[in-house]
């Protein structure tokens, strides 16, 4: 969340109800792309809705993804079963789950075998050269943003950073106070694999190598 009002003030932001699909679709749009679970309060503030409305919409979407007709459990009127909004009678392949207070969309548990098989396909037990080099830069320059690593390596490192995170070798270590970019550092699993106790034990590099000061960050620079 970029704005930090504790209680969302309805009416000051974008009017979600005027968009196609309304507030429900807007909520779906957010849920579909967020990586970290979001609380109902966070969602409400971003969507400019009250927490109550968002909680109702979340419950509705959850039921809908699970294949129940919407509103049926909540409303007495039996006629609502005639798919007024047009909702699925069979479960979707994804589900909306509330884990530790936050909401996020996950692939449906029943399909875990299929999804697992798909994920494993094409995965190797070895890191690519690009991944190794990126890991090396992060290890010696941590905490460091992706943009900096890109600037040092001269190529886009977004997907490699994702792989390294997925592999548990690096992790998010907060954001840069100036740029707001996510900073990455190596994990204890990395140390374990390297067989060392701390990053201070990494062999020293030649003192002539440039640090981060000299690195032009094209990514964030105003000109690009």
């Amino acid at each position, binding site marked *: 969340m970029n704005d930090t009002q504790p209680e969302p003030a309805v009416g000051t932001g974008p009017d979600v109800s005027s968009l196609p699909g309304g507030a429900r679709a807007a909520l779906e749009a957010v849920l579909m792309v967020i990586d970290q679970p979001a609380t109902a309060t966070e969602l409400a503030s971003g969507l400019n809705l009250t927490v109550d409305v968002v909680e109702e919409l979340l419950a509705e979407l959850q039921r809908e993804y699970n294949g129940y007709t919407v509103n049926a459990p909540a409303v007495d009127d039996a006629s609502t079963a005639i798919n007024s909004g047009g909702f699925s009678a069979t479960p979707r392949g994804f589900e909306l789950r509330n884990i530790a207070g936050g909401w996020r969309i996950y*692939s449906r548990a029943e399909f875990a075998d299929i999804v697992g098989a798909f*994920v494993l396909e094409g995965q190797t037990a070895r890191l690519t050269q690009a991944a190794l080099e990126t890991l090396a*830069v992060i290890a010696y320059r941590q905490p460091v943003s992706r943009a900096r690593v890109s600037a040092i390596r001269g190529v886009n490192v977004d997907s490699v950073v994702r792989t390294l995170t997925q592999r548990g070798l690096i992790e998010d270590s907060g954001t840069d106070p100036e740029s707001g970019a996510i900073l990455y550092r190596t994990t204890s699993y990395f140390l374990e694999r390297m067989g060392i106790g701390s990053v201070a034990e*990494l062999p020293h590099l030649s003192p002539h190598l440039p640090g981060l000061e000299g690195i032009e960050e094209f990514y964030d620079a105003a000109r690009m």
Partner: protein
Amino acid sequence: MAETGPPTAQPELDQAGKKPGFEVRLANFTGPFDLLLGLISKHQLDITEVALSTVTDEFIKYIKRLQNLGEEWALDEASEFLVIAATLLDLKAARLLPAGEVEDEEDIALLEARDLLFARLLQYKAFKHVAGMMGSTLELEARRYPRQVALEGHFAALLPELLWRHTPQQFAGLAEAALKPKEAAPTEVGLAHLHGTAVSVKEQAELLGIRLQRGTPLTFRALIADAESTLVVVARFLALLELFRDKAVAFEQLLPLGDLTVRWTADGGAWSSENLSEEYEEQP
């Protein structure tokens, strides 16, 4: 043309907050520079009738006004103008040369060169146009966010255990290589392997200095009469430019395309080839 605003020469901000582009006032045309290019490329205005020097003067004034208004040095606009102006100049030069009937290969080559310059101008404009379209597409597409979430924990756990064979030393080696500043890749074809006779601008300048300091003005034609190759001619021409910059020589040309007369103006001994700029020292 994109800009069709009223032909004010003032780079003031209009209502939309956009500054109107560069505009020119010529005897036979007043309006945006872009429109002028459009007319030339549609053959509605003959390039030979456009006073390019006036266009250039106006452009310099325009840039200066921008600076005075506290705008940043409009580098993009200036370099763009230079590209177009250089192309127009080439085009005009080609047009002004006598065309006549196509008789020999040289004439054909000349016509081709003219079309080529014209094509270059059009191509430049075309790329500029599609770049604008790509810009708006990129902006529009940036409004769609891909689902790009971390693998759910139970799937990540399925991934095969990493094979790790790097020792800390090897890993440090990787880091050294990755952190080492990259040498800029060559952008041009190396010519070092083409062994031509080395011709030094400095040597040629010394030679010209000796000849001109005898006191008699000499024509460029005379100064290159004994040049054994085009390379020597070029070197002497560059040397003359250097000498001119150092105020060691003066030029006289009575008629356009007439003979260029070179006169020595520096006091005896006030000039030496050591004054020559460094840039020529290394180059043949």
